[in-house]
Structure formats: C-alpha cells, structure tokens
C-alpha cells in the first residue's frame, strides 16, 4: 500500500457552522494550475432561511488567536507557546438564500452560480477580495411542475454555457448574459434528473432516479437522448456523476445503494466496473481536476473515500475477482477493451483486470455518524460539508 508509507500526514480541521451543508466548492484560483485556491463557498439546506458562506483560509498565528483565548490559559505568567503555523478557515461573508442550496458552480474565477430547490439559478460576480457577492442575474422558474416549482438538482458549466437539470426531468441550457435559456428540453426524462455534466461543448450526460445514464446532444431537437446507459436491471437511483478531466468518455456515477459505477461511453450499455464500498447513498463523486488518477466520493453513511489507481500498472496482471465489488459487464467487454499502458493511465479505472489490487481505497475522514453531502478538492486541499453542521478541511491529501 503506497499511501501508508507516506510520511506526510494529512491534517483534518473541523468547523461547526450551525447549518446543515449541502454543497461546498473551491473558488478556482486566478491562475489555475499555478497556485492554490484559498477561498471556498458553502451552501446550506433544510433551514427556513438558508445561507451561502464564503470562507477564506488564513495563516493563523498568535495574533489571530488572541481573540479566542481559553480562560485557563489567559495567565500572563504561563509559559509562552511557540508560534504554530496552521491554516484556519474563516467566514468572510454570509449571504441569505431562498430555498435549499442544491448546487454551487464557478464559471471561471469570478462568476458563482447557485441553484435552488425553488427551481431557480442565481449568478453572482465575486469581488476581488471575495468579500462581496454581487448578484448579476437570476433565472426564475427554470424547473417547475404543473402546479408547483421543482428543485433544480445540479448544474454543469462549459465555457459560458450552463446546463441545469431538475426533479421535473427537464434540461435547460443557459448562457451567461442571456436572460432566457437558449435551449429547453421538456420531459427529457420521465424520472427525476439528479445530476448533469458536460462531456463535450454540446453534449451533456445526465443521471436519473431510475438508474439510467443518458447522453444528450443539446443541438438536436426533440427530447430523445443520443444514448441510454443502465446500471443494472435493478432500479438504483444515481445521485451524482463526474467525467474524467482528460478522457471525456470515462464517466463515474454514484448510486443510492453505495455503488460507484464506471462507464466507458465508447463501449456497451452496462458499466464496465462497479465498486461497492459505501454503505449508503453516494452524494457526490469528483475526479481530481489535475490529478485524475485520484477520485473522491462522499456518502450518506458519513464517510469520504479517496480512490487512487496504482502507478506503473501492467496489463499482464492476472485478474482475480475479489469480494466486496462486482465486475458485471466485464466478461462481455474483455475483448473490446484494449490493454492499459502506462501512457493511458486513465483507463486503469476501467481496465479489464480492475480489482482491489489496482485501486487503493482509503478513508479521508474519521468515521462520522452524519451524512457527508458534498466534497471538493483543489490542489491537495479537500473540503467537505455534512449534515452534522460542520465543514471538514483536510490539507495535504496525498496524491499520485
């Protein structure tokens, strides 16, 4: 196990917020890839009035600690502790929000999009110091049913286009600066759409509550998808979906029974691999944006898992099926799949001999009792938000 030999320890920091958090997102840094972000946004749910919080990591020292001295150590005659450098997130802005915050997305560095359980999407312009959110536009009533509004469940950003989906089974494509959606697919799905992601500029992938993954070309008229993929014969709702950052045909989705499914969209309809590591709903799945051999999932069972493919994988390794996960669909696909090479590291996720020895799975957090609703990673900093009304900030996550 590579991860266990790493001397660098990741550090977990907990902050209670007095609200249940539905979503956390890092703000992308000005120069992406060159610097690490120090700002993230959280959204809450289930309160009568919910809120958006903007957090900033501050390099705390004794001076910033002075305000919250423990009475027991207030003595001036006590020994002076050596100044300890540590990172502490602080709330720099609180903005109230109507309805549950269902998703947060950044379009570039300065535009923040917030979707609501009332079926609307609001965009904000983030001030340079992140201390102000200036509302720029609101798309009302994007998702609605015959008699009432319906929650917008997820958004996906591609350039200036934003695709949204909702429990009403509708897909909207918005363009920033356009007042009206540029494309609406009514009745795109007969069930609730739970998540959406762009695979190409004009192609989106959705997952629904009947265990189907669909690919849509938003330029085409009508409400039929290009392709439909299924998990299994069982109706397992899919809650979240993410695409491999460099290999867009590789898609991961999390289901209500705790499974993580991997599809190769160039191939057959069933997932190539199914991992069964969570005990309950997988609420979010996230490939590391620059290190796609790493994947993170969070679940209703209170755990956050870090999945990583092992480096230097060779194709000659014999496949030995292990308990705890199933390899349905593999037998039919074995001949179709090309063997993974070192240059094609992404396919380790879907290699025909995928088993536990190819992929390391580690817990990121100590076990919690409350569901973890959202996870996001930026550089080596991971943040997650829970129903236990706390954020967990993990710094120095080890990545391949």
């Amino acid at each position, binding site marked *: 196990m590579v991860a266990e030999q790493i001397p660098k320890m990741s550090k977990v920091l907990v902050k*209670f*917020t*007095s*609200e*249940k958090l539905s979503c956390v997102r890092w703000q992308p840094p000005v120069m992406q890839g060159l610097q690490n972000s120090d700002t993230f946004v959280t959204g809450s*749910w*289930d*309160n*009568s009035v919910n809120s958006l919080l903007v957090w900033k990591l501050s390099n705390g020292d004794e001076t910033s600690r002075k305000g*919250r001295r*423990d*009475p*027991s150590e*207030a*003595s*001036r*005659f006590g020994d002076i502790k050596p100044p300890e450098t540590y990172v502490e997130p602080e709330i720099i802005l609180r903005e109230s929000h109507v309805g*549950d915050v*269902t998703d947060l997305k950044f379009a570039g560095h300065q535009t923040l999009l917030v979707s609501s*359980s009332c079926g609307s999407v609001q965009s904000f312009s983030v001030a340079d110091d992140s201390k102000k959110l200036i509302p720029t536009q609101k798309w009302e009533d994007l998702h609605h*049913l*015959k*008699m*009432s509004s*319906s*929650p917008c*469940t997820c958004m996906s950003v591609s350039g200036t286009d934003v695709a949204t989906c909702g*429990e*009403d*089974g509708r897909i909207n494509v918005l363009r920033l600066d356009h007042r009206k959606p540029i494309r609406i697919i009514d*009745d795109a*799905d*007969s*069930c*609730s759409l*739970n998540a959406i992601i762009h695979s190409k500029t004009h192609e989106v992938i959705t997952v629904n*509550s*009947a265990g*189907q993954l*669909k690919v849509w070309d938003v330029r085409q008229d009508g409400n039929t*998808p290009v392709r*439909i993929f*299924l998990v*299994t*014969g*069982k*109706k397992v*709702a899919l809650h979240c979906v993410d695409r491999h950052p460099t290999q867009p045909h590789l898609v991961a989705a999390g289901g*209500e029974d705790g499974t993580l499914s991997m599809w190769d969209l160039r191939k057959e309809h069933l997932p190539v691999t199914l991992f069964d590591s969570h005990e*309950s*709903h997988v609420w979010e799945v996230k490939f590391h944006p620059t290190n796609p051999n790493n994947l993170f999932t969070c679940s*209703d069972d209170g755990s956050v898992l870090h999945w990583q493919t092992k480096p230097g994988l060779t194709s000659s390794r014999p496949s030995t099926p292990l308990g705890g996960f199933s390899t349905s669909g593999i037998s039919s696909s074995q001949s179709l799949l090309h063997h993974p090479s070192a240059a094609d590291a992404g396919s380790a996720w879907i290699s025909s001999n995928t088993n536990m020895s190819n992929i390391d799975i580690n817990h990121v957090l100590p076990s*919690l*009792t*409350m*569901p973890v609703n959202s996870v996001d990673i930026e550089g080596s900093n991971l943040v997650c938000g829970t*129903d*236990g*009304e*706390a954020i967990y900030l993990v710094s120095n996550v080890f990545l391949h």
Partner: protein
Amino acid sequence: MAAHRREVPEFSVSCPGSSEWYLSSRWGQGLKLSVFAGNGKRRYLDGHADTPVVLADHPAIHDIRWQTDMHHAATRKLAAQSHEIFTSLQKHTSDSTEGTRKPQLVKFSRRYRVAMMECIEDLRKAASDSLVDEATQEECDSMCQLFQQLELIWNLCEILFIETLPGGVVLQHLLDWVKLHFTEADSLAAKVIEASDDEIQVNEEYWSAVYIYVLQGRLPEARHLLSLHPDKQKDVHGAYGKIDELMRRMPVFGAFSRQTLAEFDLKWRNWQELCQQLLKEGVFVSYQRLENICRILAGQQDVLEQFQHLVGDWYQLMVTKLLYTNPMVKTMDLQYHAKSCMDVFRGSSRLLALDQILFAALEFDITQIIKISSATLSNWWFVAHMADLLHHAGQLESQQLDYGATMREFLLLEYASTLMAEESMWQIVIEYLDHCPVFGRHHLELFVEKIPLKSERKAYKLLKVCEERNMDDQAQSLCKVMGMKALQEERLGTALTWCLKSQDASFASFLAEKFLTEYSLKGNFSNLDLIDNLGSSMLVSDRLTFLAKYRDFHRLYEQGEFSEAASLLLSLLEANLAPKQFLLILLTDALPLLELDTIVFSSKQTSQLLMCKEALLKWYKSEEYTREILPKKSKGHIELEKEKLELLQLGLSRNLSRALLEESVRN
C-alpha cells in the same frame, strides 16, 4: 401502526364577544403551536366541516414556540457538536471493557466542556455584536451566563463523579476548578502589569491580585507578582525573601507524586508550624500585607473573614479553607465543610439555584442535582447530557419513574422535543430518540411521519432512516406520499420509481392502468425510457407486467418480428393479465397481423383468438358491463367498437380458412 392514540389535532377557546370566531390552535412539530382565529371546530360540531369557507381578509397564523434555547446560532453549534460526542459515547460504551472505560469517560466529559466553552465564547461575541438589536444582545448575555454556570456545575460533577481520585483526595482538582472559572486575579494582574512602565505600580489592585492568587492556592503566580514589587530589591528585613521561601516550600499533594498520605501529612504539619512560628516571631510586623499572606498560609480563620470580598463565593471559600487547614480532605467529607461555608456567606438568606445544585453535588445526591437543574435552569441540554454521562459512568441508578421510563430516557426525550420545533434538526432528534429504549421508538414513528418532504434528496435520507430501523409502515407511507405528489403533478415516471421502491403492488397496478389509459386515448406511450427498461421490477404487479409485455409486443412488431409478436399477443390475451376494457385494443392489435401476406397465426391460434373475442362479447352482455361501463360510453364510441368487432370477425375467419388450407397442404 402508532396511530391509535394521537393528540387532538385542533383545539379552540371561545372568545367573549364573538359567536363565530374562536381562538384556535394546532400542534406543530415539537414544541410549536400555530394559533389563529378559526371556527373549524364549531363547524365540525355543526356537521359541515367539509364545506369550504371563503375568508374576507387574510387571517394571521401565529407561530408560537417555547424552549427554543438550542435554536440560536451559537447554541445550535453546541447541539450539533454535543450530538457528535453523544453518539460516539453511546458507541464507545457498548464496546469497551471496564478497565479502559473510566479514563475514556473523562475524555468525553472534557469534550462536552470544550463544546460548552466554545458556545460561551460565541455567545459572548454575539452579546457584544453591535449589528443586532438590544433585546437579542441581552438574550445572548443571559444565555452566556447560564452556560457559564452550567459549565461550573459540569466541571464539579466531573471531578466528583467521573474522575478517578487516588485515595479520594480531591483538593487538587477543586483548586483547578476554582482556577479555571474565577480568573479575576489574572485580569487584575494583567491590568497592573500593562499599566506599569518599568517599575510596577503598587496599588490596591496589585494587592488584590496577590491575595486572590494566594487564596486560590496559585502560589507560583503570587510569587511572581510579589517578585515584581519594588521593595523586594531593597528587602532590608528579609521579609520578602522569607515569605517567598515559605510559599516555595509549601508541600503539594500531587496525584502522581509517590509520597504516601502520612508522609505528606508530616511535611504539611512541619510547614504550617513554620508559618505560625514566623508569625509569632513577628518577622512581618512592619509588613502588614505580607503578614496577612502568612496568616492565610497558617490557616487562620479570622483573616479569611477579613478577605471575604476577595474570596468570591462560598464554594471558593470552602476550597481556600480546605487548602490551608485540611488539604487531605476526602470527597465524602466535603459536604460538612460546604455547609459551614455556606452559612458564612448566605446566613439565613435564600439559597440560589446554583448553590443548591453545587451543594447537592457535594452531597453526592445526583437525583437532586438533576431535579433542581431541570426545575430552575430552563435548559434540557445540560440535564440530558449530564444524566447520560452519569448513566454510562454507572452513577445514575436506573430507577423507573412512575410512567415507565428511566430518568435518563425521560430527560433525553425532553431534550429531543425541544429540538423538534427547529425543522432542520430532525436528524439530530432521530439519533437521540434511538437511544431511548422504552418510548423512543414510539416517538420516532410519530415524528418521522410529520417531517415535511420538500425535496427528493430529503425523502431519500428519511427513507434510509426508516429502512435502517425496520420502520416498514413509515417507509411505505413515505414512498406513497412521494408517489402521490408526483402523480398529482402528472409525473407518472417519478411516481412509478417511488412506487417500485416500496414494492407497492396496488399503487403499481393503478399507475400501470394510468399508462394504459393514456395509451388508449392517445395511441402512443409516454415515459418510454422507463417502461422499456423496467427489467425485473415489472413483477411487482400483474398490471405492470402486462404493461411491460405489451410494450414488448409493440417493439417486436416495429422490428418486423411478426410471429414472435403474434405469440406474445396471444399469450397476453390468454394469461388474463389485461384489464377487461383493454381486451378490444389487444384484439384490434391482432388485425394488421391477420392481414399480412404470410400467415402468422396458425389455425389453432386463430381459434384461440376467436374464443377470446367470444369472451369479450360475453362480457359486453354481462350485468357489470351494462350497468357500469356502457352508460359512460358515447354513441360514436359504441359504433366504432362494433365496427372493430365486425372487422375482427371477418379477419379472423379469413385467417382461419387460409391457415387451415395451408396446414392441410403442408400435411
């Protein structure tokens, strides 16, 4: 089902001066009442409760809540944090051995206290926040004071009931307790030092700080402060040096020192004799202040009375007294000392709640602590968590209360119900109810049903709660509620997924029929993505199986696989899965197959089709049909059906003859 005894949903009080309107109210979730001007009950009694009333103006509904002390942002943080500690405590004690339990319990107790301290800090900040109005500030301030008291009590209980005390010598812990909660000396000392440039200002505050340090037994701090005294440098009589030496040499009975009690006792007596001797010798005669200190050290009672204003309160006096007169006091004897100190401070005046609770703690009367705390401190958080911790420490006798539950359970239930009114805290409430063995389940069942379902995600979470606890009825009704909601919005696909989750056969049949009606009206199916991929879940109900198979027939037909389509159609007709009204549609579907150039129905199959047709005709003549369905059909509709049947008759007989001919040729 837990529905047999529920509270009256609505009650009303008649208002004088109005014959029509009543002060009415309805229970909300938890400790919440919605109060409004209503007349529902009266109309109900009059027997026309169902007729809608149009109100001229919008009536106001007042939302009344009480015991909301855990809903404030700062206290809510405490609720979330302590919930986490609470659940890990329950998990911990179920899988730990007797040996490791005690030190672990102390850790849990400290974690609770850390959470309380954070809460106090947040409340203090909120109380001085200039952005909020004065009333809120005041509220925060009073809550802050309350939690400070609670923390004081908690700490004492931790020392007395949870810590392991070697030989029952408790004094060192009590000193820490006083030091932690009464920091007046620290602030005084800090003030004095900050105000002085290079030489210390010797004023009243300086001496107060020194005295309090000595009274609290914090001699290193006192010595440090004394060493800053300008006279110390030109200490001609050596008085400062002597008092410093005395304080340095005071023996301390540490929990981890290796000395026995007898050894310590000897050392202590020697030291105190030294103090008395120095006093007698008059070393400090010209240093009134130093003499006072020495008199405190020597354990003279009268000097304590003189410094009563610096001591603080009776419990601080008790600790000081014990420190300088009886440092080896056992926990069991504390109550006698407490009583005498209380008499000094309170005399005959009434005891405050805090006094009573602390005294009850020193008397080891846990029931009394909880009783008084519940009655006077208006906060269930403290008593519930305290009782639970003591329960795990084996200190709380599990005596049954009159109504069947133990004290711990009663308190946990009370605490959980104060959280119920805050809608988003339902997950926390559920976990507390889980740990109430007698009534928890019952409360849980009633509670779960009343949680509003605003989004599917919330429904999923709640469904998981029900499934984990085998609450089948509640899970079933939750799926039904979500399904019905979707149905009302005409989202049949979503309705079906919820219905399949609960394996609700009758609802599935109902929905399948909806799909079929939609087909018979429009001639095509909606929600194909779902129906085509039903898989094994179609087996939930016969109707749904029929729907999926019928859709299969259409697909086969479209793909041009006519003979497979024909036999599937026939098996559908014969299996009797279809609703009666749908039979004609099925038979009509056979028509194009009959008209094909090649023969797809054999003579045997054709006669089976004929039999089905006869069965249909027979049903048309039945009483059920003529009475219930016929009157609903329009004239044109009946004509059309008739025409279809005639066509069918023609097609069937033609096919029969062709088939017979071909079969005879083949043979």
